Every structure is written in C-alpha cells, then in structure tokens.
C-alpha cells in the first residue's frame, strides 16, 4: 500500500498546538498525520487540536489514527481534541463512539477548552 503525503500545517496556539491536515485522510495519507502526532510527542508537545476543516473525506484509517493520537497523547499526559464542522465526520464520530470522551467542537478554541486536565 503506497504512502502518499498530505499537507499538514502545524501552529502553536497558546499552550497547545494545532494540526491542520489539508486533503483526504485515508489509508494512503494517514501515515503523515500519525507521524506528525508522533513527532509532537517526541518534541514534548502533549496538547493538540486536530482541525478537520480542510479534510473533505476521512475513512476508518483516518479515524483510527485520531483514536491512536488520543491514546498516545493521553499516555504522555496530554490530550487530543477535534475541531470539526463537517457533518460526515461528526456522524462517523457518533456512530463509532469515538466522540465519547473526546472533545469535539466547531472551532479550535472551543475544542481546546475540552482538554482533559
């Protein structure tokens, strides 16, 4: 399965970082997101908001990578929150139960208020 790159913007915002992928988040591109989260943990960042505003499509691999990010960041003492307004993703979060216990909000700022302390 060939890996493809996806554009990922990373920005510091207050005491957390925002990861903003642009493009489909699927089995082919999810490695980039996984690597970005892994690099943040290595660099000492543990509070991350993933902004899905520029992700038109996300499959189960993308959702799995988000859950993996939640677990790894929580193990490192931090958390992962989701900024998302796309109905399709929100439905996926609801159906699978991903949304339970993970802060999901329409904006980055609102999502960040839901970080587990």
């Amino acid at each position, binding site marked *: *399965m060939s890996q493809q790159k996806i554009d990922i913007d990373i920005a510091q915002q207050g005491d957390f970082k925002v990861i903003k992928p642009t493009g*489909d988040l699927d*089995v082919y591109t999810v490695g980039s997101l*996984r690597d970005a989260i892994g690099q943040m943990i290595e660099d000492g960042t543990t509070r991350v908001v993933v902004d899905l505003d520029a992700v*038109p*499509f996300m*499959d*189960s*691999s993308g*959702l*799995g*990578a988000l*859950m*993996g*990010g*939640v*677990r*790894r960041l929580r193990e490192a003492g931090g958390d992962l929150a989701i900024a998302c307004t796309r109905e*399709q993703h929100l439905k996926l979060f*609801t*159906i*699978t*139960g*991903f949304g*339970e216990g993970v802060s999901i909000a329409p904006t980055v700022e609102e999502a960040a208020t839901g970080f587990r302390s």
Partner: protein
Amino acid sequence: MRLSLRQKLVGGFGTLLVLIVLLGWVTLSLFGSLRTVQRRVFDTALPRLVAVDEIIRSFTAQSAAIRGYLISTDVSLLEQYRTEVETAIEFEALLLERDPRGNERELLENLIEAGEEFQDLIDTDVLPLAEQGQRSQAFRVLGQEGNVLISRIELLGEQLRLVQDRVVADAENTLRSRQSQVLLTLALVIVGTFTAGLLLAILLPRRLARNLDALVRAARGIERGDFNQRIEIHSGDEVEELAVRFNAMQRGLKRLQQLALQDRELEIAATIQRNLLQRSIPESEGLHVVPIQRQANLVGGDWYDIERSGRCLSVIIGDASGKGIAAALMATVTLSSIRAERGMGAGPKRIIDRANKALLDATESDSFTTVLLVNVDPESRVARWFNMGHHAPFLLRPRVDGVEGTYLEGPSNRALGWFEDPGHEEGVVELQPGDRIVLFTDGFLEAKDPDGQLFGEDRLAEALVKLAPLDAANLGEQMVGEVERFAAGKLDDDLTMLIVELEAP
C-alpha cells in the same frame, strides 16, 4: 577522467600511432645527425688533409724544379716551378677559406709565411744569381737557406697534417659515438613503442575482459536467483555504466521478487480468508440471507457470519478499519472469536464482549472494527440488533404502492477494539412479510466518483428502493454494479452486503 570505450580504443591506437611517428622522426633525425658528421669528415677534414699534402708536395716540387733548372737551365723547369708556386698558393687559399682556428690557423700562417720566404728567396736571390751565371752561388744559397725553409715547410706541413689527422680521427670517433647513440636510441624507441603497444594490447582488453567477466558472473548469479551481488567497476566507460544499471536491475528484481513473495503470501492469506467465510449459508423457514461481496484487493477487512439458532438466524457483518493484510488479520481475529463463542452457545452480548476483548488484546488503539449483529425470528417477525459502531441497516418494506426504504437508526454502541465496555444497547424492529433488512459495509457509502464525490447514504437508499423489485441476489449484484459504475470501475474499498429477507407468504 571518464572516457567511453570508443574514446579509449581510439586513444590507445592514437597513442600507438604517435609513438610510431615518433620512432620514424627519431630515426630520421639520428640518420641526419650521422650524415652531418660524415659531411664534416668528407667535406672538411679530408680536403684539408689533401690540401696540406699538396702544399708540402708543391714546395718539395718547387725545390726540385729550381734545382733541376740550376743544373740544366731548362726553362720548362722554371715554368714547372711557377706552376707549383700557383698550386701551393691555390691550396693555401683553400685552407684559409675553410677558416681554420687556433693552432691550425697559426700553423697555416707560418707555413704560408715560410712558403713566401722560400719563393722570395728563389725570386730575389737564387734566380738572379743563376741569371748572372753564378749557379754555384745559387746552389749554395738554395742548399743553405732554401733547404732550411723547405724543412720548415715540411715540418709545419707535418704538424698541419697531424692536426687534420686528429680532426679526421675526432670525426670518426664522433661518428662511431653517434652510431652507438643512434642504435641505442633506436633500440629504446623501438622497445618503448613495442612495450606501449603491448601494454595497450594486453591491459585494455584484459581490463575489459575482467569487467565483462564480473558482469557475466553476476548474470549467472541472477540466473540462480541471487540478487545481492554488488558489481564494483570503475572503468569510467560504458562497462561501468552497464555495471551501475546491472546493480539497479538487481534491486528492481529483488523488489519484484519481494512483491512476488508478498503476492504469494497475499494469495495464501486470501485463501485463508475465503475459507473462513461461509461456504453454505444457513436458512430458516420463511427466512433467508443472501451475501454479496466484492473485494477491492486480494484480502480485506470485510467479513460476515450467519448462524441458525432454532428458527432464528443470527447475522453478523463486520468491517475492520484500514485495508489489506492488517485489516484481514483483524477480521480473522474477530471472526475466530465470534465463531468460538457461538460454538459454545454464547448470546449476542457475550459474543460482542469477547470479540472486543480479543481485538483490544491483539491490536493497537488506532485499529477498530465495526460490527452489526442482527437476530431475526421469522415466527415472531422481530429483528433485534446490536450496532457496534457500524452504519445503520436499511429496511426495504413492500407497500401497496411500491417499496418503502428507511435506515433503522436504532441505538448505537461503540466500535470494537477501543473501549473496555463497548456498550450493549439493542435495537428492535417488528417485521412484515416481504421485508428485507440490508446490512452493508462502508465501501458502499465511501465509493467516490472521478470528481471525488461520495456515493453516500442518500444514493444508496435511492438505489436500494429502485432495485427492490429484483430478487435479493439480483438486487445485491445490481447494487454493486451501481456503485462500480459510480466509481468508474475504480473501487478502493471492499463491498459487502447481506440481504436478510423475510419471505412473503
């Protein structure tokens, strides 16, 4: 420096040609040098030697002619004397023309001076005395003063001859030395040219042959299936290029071999997965299930399992996250757990819990599996389901005026493999004869058209309703066809659909 094979060959033969031209030039130069030495001997030294001899002979002849004249008063002898004087002057001039240097010039000048003194003696003393009739007195003067001068002339002539002899001897020595030099130089140039030619003839083909031999050995190794050979050739020509390509080709072949191996492994995995899927689908009276599956790859994460328990059918559809081998392994783990629990007569909740536990143990948190477990009782016409993070099933219900289609949005629990407690909320629906419950995986919803638009729930619902007049098997096939057409034949995910049909009486 990088040189092509052609450049090397042209360069090699060009060098040889230059050496041969050099050899010719050196030979000609050396022969020219010998010729110069020879010319010096023949054109300079020998004429001088002859001239010296002639001068001495001339003065001796002058002396003899005068003596004869004094004795016989023969005028012809006086003429002979004059002729000899001219001869002496002529050869003296000849010697002076050659511009002698040092001792030779000094000796020549002394000789000329002595000759002039002799001629002066003859002209001023001897001949006047003879003409006056005093021949005895003339003889005496000639005998005393003339003989002294002739002896001096002979001595000087001898010394000059010695000088010329030395010049000739030196020239001969030079000639001999030059000859040796010529021979030595010629020998060296010939040996050098031969060696250079030999080296070119041996080394160039030898290196080429050695490099080609390395390539042949590598080719034989590849024939045996050894793709790990490293060919190191730094000849800077086409052979090095060939070796570089050869190494790249080996890497390519190795990748192909690995891919072939992976394909083989995939085929084995696919066989295992096919064997895990049910070969015969259980039925119940008035109730049957039609499975339809299109895998995008050899192996995938979609699976299903159908079991009859009494008059009820328990239908499960599952979809592991991701694709390929990893998804197939997760599917195998889940399906194995479910079969094991079913074999022990476990109920739906335990089946779900055990499958969840198996996935939690076997996978990382970025993997999960959605499961939809539906129990249908054809007698009571009740369907109960546990939706574990899966898409809601679709109900097709015949109406007088057609077919009604709705998603059964019942309670949803969590996907398996993430949480210790996935939840056990149950959905229930009362069925009517002719009802069809359609279970499907996300491949149907996430199929994309060439513009990237998703097939989605609405199109699926619409298509299912449209195809509802068909029997279940055809409905499933046509549905797959619809999605394939939508995706322009480029399906990226597996399509699995189970149509549970409660037969109409």
